[in-house]
């Protein structure tokens, strides 16, 4: 709306005609967003309400006639479920392993690619590529790479110390899962860091350098502080995503006739979302499984809230340039 028409509007008397126009304008918005409104109602709001309802029952996914209301029994059960506690512990181990290392890798690569570099487009593509590789293909990549008989990893280690025969997916499944996750997530985070770096005016760095700051000092005292909002964004996204990891550990389950669809991953990779998935789709405990998922949802919301609270201490929200 230009200033002229805005002024005209204020000058006009608030007649019935104008009010009708307001109603029409409101109708326009709701008409335009109606696909999402309908989708939200049918595919989000109603399912979420249903999920909440289910979590208080013994629903098995099939028989409505046997449904009983259990109150908070499912939630009480979740808190004493040894499998759920084990799975939560393994999930936290993975989050702690994957998120910080992942952030450091993404940030270092972005910092290196942000310099004037030959073939920078090629490097960017190489690091970005795993991010667009589908999870099934990625699982094959890592299953093959770590395979004891035809895999390259043991062969590489064998150069240094011959006669190694590590069964990675059996003995160290979490290491493979962590590598797979970091490898696959790097591209997405790196691009966001690169965009953030390009948003930092070059004058800041140049001024510091003229004042005699070294390259490391510029990175430490100029670039990184200005980048904290982006680091924070990637940290939150990374933690939320890592808490929900489900398909990767299932596909990496050891087995020779394929990725392990429907099979239970080894105990070390038995993550929380995997536990919920198996509870629901294998054991048909839709009610109990829904309670497990709502608890995960609460953890995600709670953690995000805490992260935002702590962000005030270390995220630099900057002064207007």
């Amino acid at each position, binding site marked *: 709306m230009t200033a002229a028409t805005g002024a005209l509007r204020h000058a006009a008397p608030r007649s019935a005609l104008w009010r009708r126009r307001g109603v029409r304008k409101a109708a326009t918005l709701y008409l335009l967003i109606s*696909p999402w409104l309908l989708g939200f109602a049918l595919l989000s709001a109603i399912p979420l309400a249903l999920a909440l309802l289910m979590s208080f029952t013994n629903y098995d996914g099939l028989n409505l006639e046997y449904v009983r209301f259990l109150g908070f029994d499912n939630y009480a059960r979740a808190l004493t479920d040894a499998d759920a506690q084990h799975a939560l512990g393994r999930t936290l181990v993975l989050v702690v392993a994957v998120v910080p290392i992942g952030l450091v890798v993404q940030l270092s690569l972005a910092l290196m690619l942000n310099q004037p570099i030959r073939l920078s487009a090629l*490097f960017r593509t190489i690091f970005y590529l795993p991010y667009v*590789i589908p999870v099934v293909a990625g699982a094959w990549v890592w299953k093959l790479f770590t395979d004891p*008989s035809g895999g390259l990893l043991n062969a590489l280690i064998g150069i240094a110390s011959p006669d190694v025969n590590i069964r990675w997916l059996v003995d160290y499944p979490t290491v493979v899962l962590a590598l797979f996750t970091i490898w696959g997530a790097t591209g997405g985070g790196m691009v966001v860091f690169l965009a953030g770096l390009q948003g930092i005016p070059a004058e800041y760095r*140049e001024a510091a350098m003229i004042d005699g700051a070294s390259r490391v000092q510029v990175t430490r005292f100029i670039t990184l502080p200005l980048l904290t909002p982006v680091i924070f964004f990637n940290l939150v996204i990374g933690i939320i995503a890592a808490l929900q990891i489900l398909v990767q550990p299932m596909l990496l389950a050891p087995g020779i*006739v394929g990725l392990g669809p429907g099979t239970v991953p080894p105990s070390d990779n038995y993550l929380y979302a995997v536990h919920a998935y198996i509870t629901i789709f294998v054991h048909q405990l839709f009610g109990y499984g829904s309670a497990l998922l709502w608890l995960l949802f609460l953890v995600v919301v709670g953690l995000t809230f805490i992260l935002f609270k702590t962000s005030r201490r270390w995220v630099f929200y900057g002064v207007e340039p």
Partner: protein
Amino acid sequence: MSLAIRPRASARAIALRYGPLLVAATAFTLPLFWVAVTSLKRQSEYNASPIVILPSVLQWVNYEQAVLLADFARFALNSILLSGTYAVLVVLSSALVGYGFARHRAPGRDRLFAVLLATLMVPNLVLFVPQFVLFARFGLTNTYWPWVLWGLGGSPFAIFLFRQFFASFPRELDDAAEVDGAGPLRIFFRVYLPNSGPALAATAIFMFLWVWGDYLYPTLLLSVNNTTLAVRMANAYVDPRGNPLQTVTMAGVVLYVLPLVAFFAFAQRFIVRGIVTTGIKG
């Protein structure tokens, strides 16, 4: 960066700059390289001990086998159909909704937009389980309808991007079109859509990739007859005795991924432009 204060790069500086990058690039590509190499080996070379690094004769026949043994074309077609339908629907619908949020005012708009952003926080599985129950109740499992519905409903993430993107359009465009008597839909289709080619393409590519790569939903919603290539590729190829053929499997994986990589490389400039304009993270 001013040239005056930087001396000519020494050999050490060059090594420092490129060394870590080369190491990282090698680490990132080695696993992929190994898939490509394995896909060209004889099965006996794969099983050999000590390990055979490079195949003596490139076994292109593995690719032929990968296509023939798995009914590859049918699953690929399923994947293209499903991903394409979803991508087109979700981009159009999200763009329309994004345009609404960006350009039209009404009571409750900002609250609704906050609700939209809040849905981004809901874990996928929390939403999917009750959706699955509903799809099963209404007989939509084993059909492509869930993807059509998801597409029509739009993606909160894409809606958010399009809203940001359209908000940067000059409002004079709307005013001029309005003076010419164009309604909001007409303005959207005649002014906004034609001016957002790269953003539409980038979003469509990411949405296509998402369905092409998704393993979970087709596994749970579809059956062996109509499922996607992603689900098919989770099974290894086996010989008639049931022994796994890792070499043919890797050929299948390459065939599954290659179109995406090629498309991505081809469209990269396009996508990068889209990312810059919409701020897509992907």
